[in-house]
């Protein structure tokens, strides 16, 4: 999302500047030559078209909805393009230590998969929450309490070792494997 923001920002800046330049050129041109047809954009033709088009016309409504959707997308990009870093405690106040949620997810995934009880696992992580979906084999009673405890215990041990500024919540879901162990 930040890449999109970095790409859009200069393009929109240039677009705004272009609109400003065209506005100045056309106003000055119309001032100097009132009977002119527009230097860059054919605004007299646009003026005539807009004078005959009511707000309830289908093209107007369609364009309005498109403009609103584009605005909503830009707003969403702006809101979602914040950094999602995971803060770690630094040894001194002059130092800030951070890592990405991807790194935290990789660390958790690697730790969980090292267990013999886990056949496969997928992990998603943020600074607030870690979600582990583990696949394994059921207990003798048919449940997955043992697998859940194993995964939760391993993640907890890892989180104890990492100097995280804020300990994330851990959610574990398990799924059985049909193949024999």
């Amino acid at each position, binding site marked *: 999302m930040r890449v999109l923001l970095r790409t859009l920002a200069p393009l929109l800046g240039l677009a705004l500047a272009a609109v400003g330049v065209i*506005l100045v050129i056309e*106003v000055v041109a119309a001032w100097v030559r009132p009977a002119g047809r527009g230097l860059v954009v054919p605004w007299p033709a646009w003026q005539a078209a807009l*004078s005959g088009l009511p*707000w309830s016309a289908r093209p107007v409504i369609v364009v309005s909805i498109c403009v609103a959707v584009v605005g909503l997308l830009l707003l969403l990009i702006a809101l979602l393009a914040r950094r999602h870093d995971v803060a770690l405690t630094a040894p001194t106040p002059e*130092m800030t230590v951070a890592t990405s949620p991807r790194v935290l997810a990789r660390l958790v995934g690697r730790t969980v998969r090292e267990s013999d009880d886990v056949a496969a696992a997928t992990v998603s992580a943020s600074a607030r929450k870690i979600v582990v979906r583990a696949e394994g084999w059921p207990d003798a009673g048919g449940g997955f309490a043992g697998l859940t405890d194993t995964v939760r215990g391993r993640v907890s041990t890892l989180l104890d070792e*990492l100097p995280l500024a804020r300990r994330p919540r851990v959610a574990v879901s398990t799924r059985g494997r049909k193949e024999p162990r």
Partner: protein
Amino acid sequence: MSTPTEVPAGSDPGTETAAPPRRVLRGSRKAVARSANLDRVWLALLGFVLLAAGTLAALLGFGVFGTGRAARPLLDPLIVDALRAQQQLWRWVAIAAGVVLMVLGLWWAVRSLRPERRPDLLLEEDPDTQLLVTAGALAEAVADRAAALPGVGKARARMVGSSGTPALRLTVWVTDEADVAEVCRRLENEVVAEARRSLGLAHLPVAVRLELDSVTHAPRVA
């Protein structure tokens, strides 16, 4: 170029116990990554304006504000007459709006495209000579020292911030067996403290970004 805060003679910046100034603490947080706050604010503002304008126009078209208003043309004769009545004034308003849009747009574009600053450190300056440590040289030295620490696969450093408040951004790829807390402690005590000491800086804010070193698998066939 930076004119760093000099360490008083005889004191050791590595063992400094006084709390760092607030600008130093802010500097380390700001150095984590290049800020995109301005881009986000402008994009949000533009998005909000487009969303509001589009929604209002669509509601107007659907007759929410009255069927009479929905039937009126986009370029309302009432508005056109009002503009023509004060033609001189509105021309100047339009020119001013165009200039403002042009300046704001160009400023936004240039600011977004401008590369991040890498301030050099100016250690000494007199009329004849000046002692300058370039940002690249300092970053390379720090990165080399950081990469040599146990548990660190590779490291990359760069100077960021302004010439008045330089900061160091350090990206460190830790290995599988690394003790992250120990790596951070050694980075501060051995790498950054040494950089401060050798440059005679009282404070140098540091932002460390930890990444996982890519795993190298052993070949399946010998």
